[in-house]
């Protein structure tokens, strides 16, 4: 069986490369996009098995908007989305995954700085490797 594909959408190219090393070493294929727009296009085209999405790229709520659009597209409606957040992000509201997951279209939140262990654990939870 082919290895699972993970789409990383984040405008921090260095972080994307760090995540790529971790995930590839754990048997996943990684594709990436630096903008929300490009990420949406790639998700539609390549139908990844999981999406890692940065909460804030160009605009304050770009990550959330991308997440809503992914959920409303039938290709990616059921794809697990892990959202990367940073401690100081000024999103204009405090979200709490425990409280807010009912109305936020993502499966998990991962707080930056992401430790490789946590990242792999979280990805495995939603996407067991078939090795």
């Amino acid at each position, binding site marked *: 069986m082919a290895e699972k594909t993970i789409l990383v959408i984040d405008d921090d190219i260095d972080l994307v490369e760090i995540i790529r090393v971790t995930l590839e070493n754990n048997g996943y294929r990684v594709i990436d996009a630096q903008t929300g727009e490009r990420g949406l296009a790639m998700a539609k085209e390549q139908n990844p098995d999981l999406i890692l999405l940065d909460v804030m790229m160009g605009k304050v709520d770009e990550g959330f908007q991308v997440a809503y659009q992914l959920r409303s597209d039938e290709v990616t409606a059921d794809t697990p989305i892990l959202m990367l957040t*940073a401690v100081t992000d000024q999103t204009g509201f405090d979200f709490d995954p425990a409280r807010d997951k009912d109305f936020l279209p993502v499966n998990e939140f991962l707080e930056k*700085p992401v*430790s490789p262990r946590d990242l792999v654990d979280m990805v495995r939870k939603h996407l067991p490797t078939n090795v």
Partner: protein
Amino acid sequence: MRHDLRNPIEPLDPGSSQFVSAASLRVRLDWFNKLRWGAAVGVLAVVLVAGVGLKAPIEVRGLLLTGVVLLLLNTVYVVRGWRFPAVDIAIEMRLVKVQMVCDLLLLTVLLHFSGGVENPLLFLYILHVIIASLLFKGREIFQIAWLAIFLFTAEVSGEYFGLLPHHHIPTASEVAHELPFTLMTLASFWLVILFSAYVGARIMSHNRAIKDELVARQSDLLDEDRAKTDFFRFVTHEIKSPVNTAQSGVETALDLIGESMVPSVRDVLERAVSRLKQATAIIRDLAELTRGGVLKEENLTVVDFNQLVTAAVDHQRETADRAGLKLNVVLPDPAVSLTTIRPMVETIVANLVNNAIRYNREGGRVSVRLVDTGKLVRLVVEDEGVGISAEEQTQVFDEFYRSAEAREKSDLGTGLGLAIVKKFVEELGGTIDLESDVGKGSTFIVVLPRKSRKNRRMKRSSGEIRP
């Protein structure tokens, strides 16, 4: 060392051209009311004792009537003071003027019934002009001065020319119809009144200029303070991503090949991660410290304070156990609830408990007590740790300040924990106290209102009131 944050220095009111605020003017008015009671009672007493008791030849009816009118008027002033709070400085100032005009009229009537130019009480006009020069500005002061001059001159001339009856008082010589004396008194009166008004106006206009200068400087300082906070927020935001990414990078390298590294190299990388974690903690704290404008009505929720404290303490119990500390919690029964911003209160409790654990002595005790005092709630966090010296107690709430004892005890603090606690307590309308002895421990006492509210200074610093 007390940090009473409910009563910061009251900002000067740049919107008002007045020297005093409505509330502080009201305090002075109350004082004038007391003086007026004294004057009215004094007049009535003297008239009753001298005129009625000793049968002295004075105008009893007219004087009694004047005293009674003064009593009635003052009752109206006092009742108004009770019924209506002082809000608008313009209204209060108008009221002072009306009262002063009435007082001058009554003083003239009183003098008329008690000898006119013969009565040394004419000095009371000068007192009024001096008070006017302290309260009013330029032209208004001279309006009062000219009114005093007009009233007294009219009364004296009226008596001299026989237009008004003269009521001689037995203690003075009969001089009301002697031209040289009358002229000399009137001339001196004019001179003293106008000179008082002039001197008062000059001194007070200087004071007003100083006040305007202070208001302008205070406004500049507030702007600078806002700019500084904005700058901190910007820097925090900009520095966050590089630090996060660097930490993830080093952790990834350690995770992938840490096991096979030469121990000294791995140690170097582990040290790097630990310092990056410290930087992340500083960034998080700075973000908390520079976040503004969260205290809005829609953010307030009812919080079970007992449950919040229990959760915060449980969260750190493991750390306390590891350090061999006894963690003691005393909560009120029934549970106490707050209407407040939950995350801010959580941070206050967490930071204080964390400090109490981190800076404790081995095998020491941390005691957390919550006391319901009715309108307020008191949170007491006590440790048996390193303590804070008296000189440093004033500084531990400053940003990035870490006491000598704290630095010795732990390398990785951010120096922002207590600054955040202070800021949050302040924003929630509370106070924080610190009692500490070096070597014995520290006690932090936070008092929070049951319902958090915006205070005046907060509004100002968040830019909602602009000069």
